[in-house]
């Protein structure tokens, strides 16, 4: 391993300077039109960066964000109960880290990402004057997450590691309910009404619950559309095409307005439940088309081979076809999840106070009128980090071929 001094020296030695020049000549300056393009691009970059930099450091007033940071993340969740949300965050980071350790191993790169992310959050929190408590929580959570990543990787070298890998889905399942319990309360904790679940908390919750609910429905619809049975095929196709022809906002509106009309008057459905119902029903149609792509990629020989082995249709589907089909479309399913995550922003139009909804209420605070750009920039950053993170993770994730 060479030291950074030698690396620095080789990077700027005459021979490597020549190398850079050759690279630049080939990639930036090969023809006259290319030179022109390079200049135009440099111009665009310079203008954008200077304008953005000047605005961020001199004109923007970040007070509107720092004062409302708690509102953005958890909304009007009772302050004395916020420790429960910190625990949720801890689970939210620990379980994926553990799974990543088990599935992919835990090396330097993962630690660097973990420490970088943790340090970034701690830095942002410290810069925005939130006091000592969040910093302490974040440091603690980062440490535990790193530890669980290493634990996951280490467990795979132990004899008891294999069953852990098999039982991971169950762990996720249980974690989800524990988190739901921590958020909503009951069973010894103070109950917190759903009207106080706002901000990023609500966005994440709605996104996760909707995708979990829409997944089985989507798979059933995809199977139905591929089915040999005419009634089932027509019903599935009709549902998928109907939903895909409508805008999401129309479906959410329908869920808010029509659902109470379609249920007996004595049953009242929570606004949050109606929103989740709308999102899941919407997402299932799109997921069905994704899964159908996977089903179509399975060669007919697989069906014939399993029939020759004497497996019935349900067994063939659940043991042979679906596992293969779902594995090929995992990236597309992640893409679907990303778009569902983005779509949760629409809930603010039908009156839920999730991340976008809270932004609307912040920009209408009398003392921060007109501070739109600051709020939407921070909001955009949060959404972007989640979406981009998911897409990068799905590209990096290599699924074991044998499972």
């Amino acid at each position, binding site marked *: 391993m060479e030291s950074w001094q030698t690396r620095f020296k080789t990077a700027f030695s005459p021979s490597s300077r020549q190398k850079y020049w050759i690279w630049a000549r080939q990639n930036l300056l090969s023809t006259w039109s290319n030179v022109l393009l390079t200049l135009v691009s440099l111009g665009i970059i310079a203008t954008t960066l200077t304008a953005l930099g000047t605005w961020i450091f001199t004109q923007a007033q970040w007070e509107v964000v720092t004062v409302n940071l708690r509102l953005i993340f958890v909304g009007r969740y009772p302050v004395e109960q916020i420790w429960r949300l910190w625990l949720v965050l801890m689970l939210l980071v620990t379980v994926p880290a553990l799974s990543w350790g088990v599935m992919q191993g835990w090396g330097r790169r993962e630690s660097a990402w973990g420490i970088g992310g943790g340090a970034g959050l701690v830095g942002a929190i410290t810069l925005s004057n939130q006091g000592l408590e969040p910093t302490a929580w974040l440091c603690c959570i980062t440490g535990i997450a790193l530890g669980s990543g290493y634990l996951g990787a280490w467990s795979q070298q132990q004899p008891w590691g294999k069953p852990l890998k098999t039982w991971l889905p169950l762990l996720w399942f249980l974690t989800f309910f524990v988190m739901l319990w921590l958020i909503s309360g009951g069973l010894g904790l103070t109950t917190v009404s759903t009207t106080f679940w706002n901000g990023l908390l609500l966005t994440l919750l709605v996104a996760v619950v909707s995708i979990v609910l829409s997944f089985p429905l989507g798979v059933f619809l995809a199977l139905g559309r591929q089915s040999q049975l005419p009634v089932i095929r027509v019903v599935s196709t009709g549902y998928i095409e109907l939903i895909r022809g409508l805008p999401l906002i129309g479906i959410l509106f329908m869920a808010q307005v029509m659902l109470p009309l379609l249920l007996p008057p004595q049953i009242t459905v929570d606004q949050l439940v109606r929103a989740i119902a709308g999102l899941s029903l919407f997402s299932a149609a799109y997921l069905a088309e994704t899964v159908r792509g996977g089903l179509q990629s399975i060669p007919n020989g697989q069906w014939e081979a399993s029939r020759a082995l004497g497996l019935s249709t349900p067994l063939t589907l659940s043991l042979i076809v679906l596992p293969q089909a779902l594995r090929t479309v995992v990236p597309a399913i992640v893409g679907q999840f990303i778009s569902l995550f983005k779509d949760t*922003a629409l809930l603010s139009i039908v009156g839920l106070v999730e991340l976008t909804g809270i932004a609307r209420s912040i920009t209408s605070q009398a003392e921060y009128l007109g501070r739109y750009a600051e709020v939407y920039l921070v909001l955009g950053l949060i959404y972007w980090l989640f979406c981009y993170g998911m897409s990068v993770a799905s590209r990096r994730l290599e699924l074991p071929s044998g499972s």
Partner: protein
Amino acid sequence: MKAVKSQPWNHPKFWPWAAQILVLGLIGLLVAYCGSNLVANFQQKQLSFGFDFLQSQAGFNIGETPIPYQPTDTYAQALGVGIVNSLRIMALGLVLATLMGTGIGIARLSSNWLVRQLGTVYVELFRNLPLLIQLMFWYFAVFLSAPPFEQRIRLLGDLSLSQRGLLLPNFLPRVSLLSWIICIGIGVAIARWVFRTLRRRQLEGEPASPWFMATITVIFWGCIAWVLTKEFPWNLELPAVRNNNITGGLLLTPEYSAILFGLTFYTAAFIAEIVRGGILSVPKGQWEAARSLGLQPNLTLRLVILPQALRVIVPPLTSQYLNLAKNSSLAIAVGYPDLYSVSSTTFNQTGRAVEVILLLMATYLAISLTISLVMNLYNRRIQIIER
């Protein structure tokens, strides 16, 4: 050997039929349950079903009215305004997003490293942000935060950006447009014939330049049109500003500009990825084969690469077009009176949930079906014809 008694459920057709009847039964039960609840709820709230409310006076104002409308007009007229407003956004958005997306998609394949990186940054930035956030950013942070008209940001001449919106030149059709259309139509028809004849001759080995002659034909008929009418069919009308009064030109309101920019920038990021994937899907050997046949680079692109790439591009492009059409309903977030926004106001005033939703569904389904029909026809034209 004991004879096995044949049970009905062992019959190979039994389970498929049972499953179908079960599904039908469940759907029937669901419909009956929801229907009876709907009737009960209607009776309890003393609502009635019917579309006659469309003929009563709407009484609300609409910000942008491309077709005549006053608050004293009917709900039907108001919804008509909404539909036209929606179509206005969709049409321009589709064209601009396609152009911009194609440009960025090609930029991502550029041989210039910097251009490629810029394209990647654009795509990753705009694809991973919710459209609603982008719309609100455009509306609140850009167009509403623009300076008042007196201190407008001048872009070029009298074209400007201010709180009143984007001031752009307008294309006005003249009376002679009809004569122009007829002349050019005749020209194109003759040019087609000329092109086919010359192309056949060219393929038989005789020297001929079909493209050149066809173009000349169209230009010739354009000249005839010019001689007949002595004017251009379009009048490029530049806006003029005197004492802060705008005359002429095209003023895009902040609402329209915000939704147009938001939809275009968002959809362009997706279209760019589709275009890039399509061009990458053409094997490298095709470029090399075309070059070894002596085809020039632009001919290679037009005759060899594009026809093959289009086959891959068009199906996902169709679904992006549909997304753009559906996403235009987010206009309500910036207060642009599109179909969804007008319907929402109508529902709030009349309380006719079922009727409004039915109208909304029917209109959006009709628009979606039209787009996919047109795109499928186009798709069928460009697909490989297998012999």
